[in-house]
């Protein structure tokens, strides 16, 4: 669901952590909301999502049942939703039955997906091995292959498939014993992963009713195959919502709304499935190495070095005994009554119950391999036989009571008052149990275990309570004012600091209703003009765990064996601050809405500032002798500002006797944040990595290089001592030469350093070289229909975001990071500096320099900073609705067929085509489960 919303509304920012089937998006409105007091990291809290008035999860919602979504961004509109709405509110209303004829609607979609990124990796054993060995030239090489082995690899270099006269798996005597020696050109990507992943969705809705009772039942089914080729992972989900409301008496209406959600992800391999396998296959799966031997056993080590081929994942997958299922089940029941004791007064009371549980299991089973022909050995890495079951059981009770009264006086004064009360109780709980040595390979039940057992628990309780009012008044719909207030209490704070009062006000002026505006209006140039402004404050309590003010001794399990088990212990109580209270979020918003040409062109602009104060951060830094982390206090402040711009053009005209309707719309939004207050620390200097006043959230500090040394002589005589960033070279006595990076001595001290420990006062030769905040997010959508044909396109883009690839960004750094990454871009060699390739992107080939600290590529710098700006065709669809006169004969009201594509085209400034900008946004190493391009078709029929 969240991926559908991505980019659709300005400043509703949705990030998806990976392309794993069933992956949920994380939502955020208007950027950074707070900072993590312990590490200074930016926090982008999610908005409160209310589904039919009750907190819910967007991604467990079925898009087909959504009637409307509205987003409240500023404090004033969100005010009455209280504590959890401080960073915006998303109101989702699901469809309801309408009185009248019963309607049955069925629609579906069949689709196939493929990764958005290139997967053309090096598949020539010779090329891969020689690249790795060269990168370790000074350090001893990687493969352990001899000159003879290299000749064998070279002879097969151009064999796309195995030539019988030159087998890819040979048996040779090495170290006194016959073993397999591999000379292949294997495409490990194709061996591990499928090119296309099928997917289907079915949806059925029944709705109807009469003037007293109406109902809606919606069922949805989704199934998708994951990317694993050997033992494919499978994801499916089902939802059913039933909604009935009855007007029992003219003064009493009751509604019951029940939703059941169930998802199931079944996988093989490492715990977690696709994503975990995906990360682990990334090492040592050389194209030279065969995944399995001629007798069908798996490979695991080459015997010529000590590394596990592909982390042993293939050996693990091949027997299919290591597997797991992640299930999620959610039940939500909302029961509401609306009482109208007198005219214009409605009292609404509702109670909802939400139960979420996720019974998961994972079975780890031993995997086997063969290195010596005929000898099958258990892999050291996957040698345990263990079943783990875990289950969260989370319950949420929410009760709301509110009364609203609306009255119009003298026909021009419209007033409305709402008074209400809300409470919420959360009770999460978790149980994990594990047992070793299960007596069956296929059955998975803890009762079958005969070995070691472990059991873990965990639970907490939090409660919220609030009372609120809203008063609105308008004069002839021309002048509008609104005042809100909320008195909130949270169990997370000590008694004396528990309650906070958060008021807000807003005002609007519809200039276009004024008499002086008539001339503009009457010539149809400007049809609507409205000015808006609001100010408000809200509290945020979702900070620091369930009991941030209570000092407790938490149980733990140590990585230390005592009495034959991992030692159980109680830790010393962490110091806590005696006075913790609400983070305060104050927002200012001004906006204008305009309509031109009879509202054919509408546009809206908002400018906002949001100050988050009282942010919990570590208190004044105490000397280390204190022996604990300083308790957090309400101290820091953050200012976020930005804007939103929306425009829409809508028109129609006849073409060949039929109406041609079309619409073009776009949004542009921005948010950026800066620290405005921190704890004043005299004892410890502010670090560039920490918090300090004036810090732009997301800023990236780094060193500056002006390119390669052109000649060896230049490298030798460069007066600046840059050993600080040349650790690999210094340690291995590798002299600087042409093709090594030359660093700029920013502080002029003749040495490249981090100054005084990267302190703000003296950061040495570092300066800000980028910023990781996503800026200028935009989107366009176009749709048109004519003669039963409809077409729509949706583009989404990002204006700027810097990314310095993490030290495990294998697709980016290749052997400059780990000299054994499996998936090296096919054309990587063209980026490697050499005497004949002096304009290469990367310097002289050397392993680990992008991996370990104090080395030239690991040190963040200007040269390798990436811009993630992109523009993507998120969706393109084409539909045709059969003429009603044809379908009516089959008693069908409406029948539409469609084809569509998602993420079909992407333009990006990111240098590599092997990483999707959204992968890089999701993960510093850019190597999460790939996102998909999807092609779909289906039909939609209504009876």
């Amino acid at each position, binding site marked *: 669901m969240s991926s559908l919303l991505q980019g659709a509304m300005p400043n509703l920012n949705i990030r998806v952590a990976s392309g794993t089937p069933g992956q949920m998006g994380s939502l955020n409105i208007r950027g950074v909301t707070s900072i993590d007091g312990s590490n200074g990291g930016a926090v982008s809290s999610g908005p409160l999502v209310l589904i039919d008035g009750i907190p819910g999860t967007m991604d467990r919602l079925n898009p087909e049942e959504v009637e409307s979504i509205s987003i409240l961004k500023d404090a004033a509109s969100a005010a009455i939703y209280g504590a959890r709405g401080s960073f915006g509110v998303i109101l989702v209303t699901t469809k309801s039955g309408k009185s009248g004829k019963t309607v049955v609607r069925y629609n579906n979609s069949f689709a196939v997906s493929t990764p958005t990124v290139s997967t053309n990796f090096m598949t020539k054993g010779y090329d891969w091995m020689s690249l790795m060995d060269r990168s370790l030239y000074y350090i001893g090489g990687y493969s352990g292959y001899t000159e003879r082995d290299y000749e064998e690899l070279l002879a097969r270099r151009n064999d796309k498939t195995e030539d019988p006269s030159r087998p890819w798996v040979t048996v040779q005597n090495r170290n006194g014993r016959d073993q397999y020696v591999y000379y292949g050109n294997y495409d490990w990507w194709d061996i591990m992963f499928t090119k296309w992943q099928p997917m289907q969705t079915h949806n059925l809705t029944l709705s109807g009713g009469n003037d007293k009772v109406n109902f809606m039942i919606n069922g949805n089914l989704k199934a998708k195959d994951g990317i694993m080729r050997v033992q494919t992972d499978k994801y499916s989900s089902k939802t059913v919502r039933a909604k009935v409301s009855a007007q029992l008496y003219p003064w009493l209406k009751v509604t019951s709304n029940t939703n059941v959600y169930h998802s199931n992800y079944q996988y093989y391999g490492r715990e977690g499935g696709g994503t975990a396998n995906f990360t682990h296959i990334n090492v040592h799966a050389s194209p030279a190495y065969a995944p399995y031997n001629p007798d069908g056993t798996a490979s695991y080590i080459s015997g010529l070095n000590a590394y596990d081929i592909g982390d042993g994942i293939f050996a693990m997958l091949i027997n299919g005994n290591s597997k797991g299922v992640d299930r999620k089940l959610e039940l939500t029941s909302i029961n509401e009554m609306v009482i109208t004791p007198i005219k214009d007064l409605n009292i609404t009371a509702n109670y909802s119950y939400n139960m979420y549980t996720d019974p998961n299991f994972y079975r780890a089973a031993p995997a086997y391999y063969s290195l010596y022909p005929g000898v099958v050995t258990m892999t050291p890495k996957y040698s345990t036989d263990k079943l783990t079951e875990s289950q969260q059981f989370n319950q949420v009770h929410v*009760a709301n009571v509110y009364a609203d009264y609306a009255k119009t006086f003298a026909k021009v004064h419209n007033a409305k008052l709402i008074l209400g*009360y809300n409470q919420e109780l959360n009770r999460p709980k978790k149980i994990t149990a594990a047992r070793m040595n299960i007596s069956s390979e296929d059955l998975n039940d803890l009762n079958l275990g005969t070995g070691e057992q472990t059991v873990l628990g965990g*639970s907490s309780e939090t409660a919220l309570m609030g009372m609120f009012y809203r008063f609105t008044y308008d004069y002839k719909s021309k002048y509008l004012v609104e005042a809100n207030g909320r008195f909130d209490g949270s169990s997370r704070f000590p008694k004396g600091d528990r309650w906070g009062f958060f008021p807000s006000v807003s005002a609007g002026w519809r200039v276009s209703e004024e008499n002086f505006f008539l001339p503009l209006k009457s010539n149809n140039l400007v049809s609507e003009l409205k000015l808006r402004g609001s100010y408000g404050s809200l509290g945020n309590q979702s900070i620091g765990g369930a009991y941030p003010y209570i000092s*407790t001794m938490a149980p733990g399990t140590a990585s230390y*064996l005592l009495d034959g088990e991992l030692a159980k212990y109680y*830790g010393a109580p962490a*110091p806590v601050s005696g006075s913790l209270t609400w983070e305060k979020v104050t927002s200012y918003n001004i906006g204008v809405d305009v309509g031109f040409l009879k509202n054919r062109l509408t546009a809206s602009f908002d400018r906002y500032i949001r100050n988050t104060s009282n942010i919990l951060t570590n208190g004044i830094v105490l000397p280390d002798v204190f022996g604990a982390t300083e*308790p957090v206090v309400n101290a820091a402040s953050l200012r976020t500002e930005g804007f939103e711009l929306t425009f829409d053009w809508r028109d129609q005209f006849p073409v060949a006797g039929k109406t041609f309707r079309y619409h073009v719309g776009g949004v542009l939004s921005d948010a950026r944040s800066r620290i405005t207050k921190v704890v004043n620390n005299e004892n410890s200097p502010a*670090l560039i990595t920490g918090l300090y006043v004036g810090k732009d959230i997301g800023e990236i500090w780094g060193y500056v290089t002006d390119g390669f040394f052109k000649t060896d002589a230049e490298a030798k005589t460069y007066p600046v001592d840059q050993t600080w960033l040349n650790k690999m070279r210094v340690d291995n006595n590798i002299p600087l030469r042409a093709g090594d990076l030359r660093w700029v001595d920013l502080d002029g001290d003749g040495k490249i350093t981090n100054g005084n420990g990267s*302190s703000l006062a003296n950061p040495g030769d570092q300066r800000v070289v980028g910023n990781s905040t996503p800026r200028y997010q935009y989107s366009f959508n176009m749709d048109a229909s004519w003669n039963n044909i409809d077409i729509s396109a949706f583009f989404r883009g990002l204006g700027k975001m810097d990314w310095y690839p993490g030290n495990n960004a294998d697709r980016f750094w290749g052997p400059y990071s780990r000299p054994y990454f499996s998936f090296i871009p096919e054309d990587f060699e063209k980026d490697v500096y050499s005497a004949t390739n002096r304009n290469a992107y990367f310097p002289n080939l050397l392993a680990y320099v992008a991996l370990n600290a104090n080395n030239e590529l690991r040190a963040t710098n200007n040269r390798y900073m990436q811009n993630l700006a992109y523009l993507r065709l998120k969706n393109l669809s084409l539909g045709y609705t059969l003429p009603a006169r044809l379908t009516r004969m089959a008693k069908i009201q409406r029948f539409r067929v469609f084809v569509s594509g998602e993420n079909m085209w992407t333009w990006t400034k990111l240098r590599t085509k092997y990483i999707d900008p959204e992968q890089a946004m999701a993960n510093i190493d850019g190597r999460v489960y790939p996102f998909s391009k999807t092609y779909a078709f289906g039909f939609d029929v209504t009876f």
Partner: protein
Amino acid sequence: MMSMKNMKVIGMLAVAAIFSSCGKDFLERYPTASVSPPTFFTTEADFKAYTNQFYTFFPGADYLYSESADNVAKSSVDREIAGSRLIPLTDGRWSFSNLRAINFLLNSENAKNYRDAAVRDKYLGLARFFRAYFYFQKVQYYSDVPFYNVVIETNDAANLYKARDPRTLVMDSVLADINFAIEKLDAAKSVERVTKWTALALKSRICLYEGTWRKYHTDMELPDADKWLNECVSASEQLMQSGVYKVYTKVDGPTKKPYQDLFATLKLDGVSDEVILGRRYSNELGLKHNLQFYLTARSQGKPGLEKRLINSYLMADGSRFTDIPGYDTLQFFAEVQNRDPRLAQTIRTPGYTRIGGTEQLAPDFFASMTGYQPTKWMNVTAYDGNSQSVNDMVIFRFGETLLNYAEAKAELGTITQTDIDLSIKLLRDRVGMPNLNMAAANANPDPYQANLYTQVNGANKGLILEIRRERRIELVMESNFRWDDIMRWKEGQLLTAPFMGMYFPVPAFTTWTVMVKTTWKSIPV
């Protein structure tokens, strides 16, 4: 059919019911899965569970085996040794969180007033054992350090900002703590729990360190060196005379060679004759370390023993290798013949086979900087993978106490040949080496060792040099002893000499020529 009026009443009641559930206590929520300090330390189980965390203060396997100093050369040199260390803003070693956890128990009213004094004292003794261990380490790193026996509050400025206490005061407290622990801890033998015997072994280690430090660091003008050496002697003697431990000499381990098996064995129980305390690992529980990957892979630092250490191994007949003319230009095969058997049980020498293997393996020059590729601690090849080692690691063993004893007595000048027979002889007997002769050693101090240890003087000079040789060889690659030894002996110059590897008579040896695709031709050091 209910009347409309009744329905209204019921509706209003329902609304009222929801309101009434919001009693005053609705927001009073207490932790459901952790306990609160005022109710803790009321059962022995509480003491046991709390003190279990102290065991994690012991070093992990990767610290216990991965020695460097001048014993093991690696592909990258610690900044301390390279002389390129920048003073950092913070340092992981300057951490006091362990102390806070210890002092929390020692200051708990519940603990102090616990009904069963024996149980209470046992755990207070355990806490004081760990406090002694904590401050011993701090003094090793920093000498003067602030001493605390309370849990510091955030507003306790006097304690938070107090100056460092003098080393002498801190070490007196350490001695008081360890003595208390010796008195109160259980005497039942255990290889995984701290006992009276562990406390004695720690005391022996601490007191030797402090005694020799004070003796050799004359510039610091510290008093009582002899007192500390005597404390070391008495603690060591108590442990030796108890008869609870002896040098492990069984031949039932994986290699049938007791010295090698002491480390190669997977479980400590088999070698509990000698091991006083160790840290256990387990494949089943996924608690593993990186030992064998470190020793065999080509990317883990490529450890190799340093040439001067190899030179220090005696000949099998007890004579000195370094007395052989031209010893420094002997090639590998020749130089490892007829040496102290511990050499072949510590590095790959010709004829070396893996446990459980039959192929003879040469040193892997891509996995060892010097060519002297260590094999100490190694078990079968199945544990060679990245973080796949599971053998238990030794933290305290009786052999160290014997060496402490001999050294302390020698430094005090009270040593006799009998003392050597009670200590060093036992270690030499295990590997079939002739005993150390005190008179002979003193009559003819080894010039090679004397060149290494420039501070040693006096009547026992020759003997002290031999005891240091014995210690270096016996304890190589254990607990980073070498660094501490160099520091307390004030022999830092050892770290400034270039580290050397195997000798090869290749003419053009001045430049690096590592051949990747062919066999090696020279050794990168």
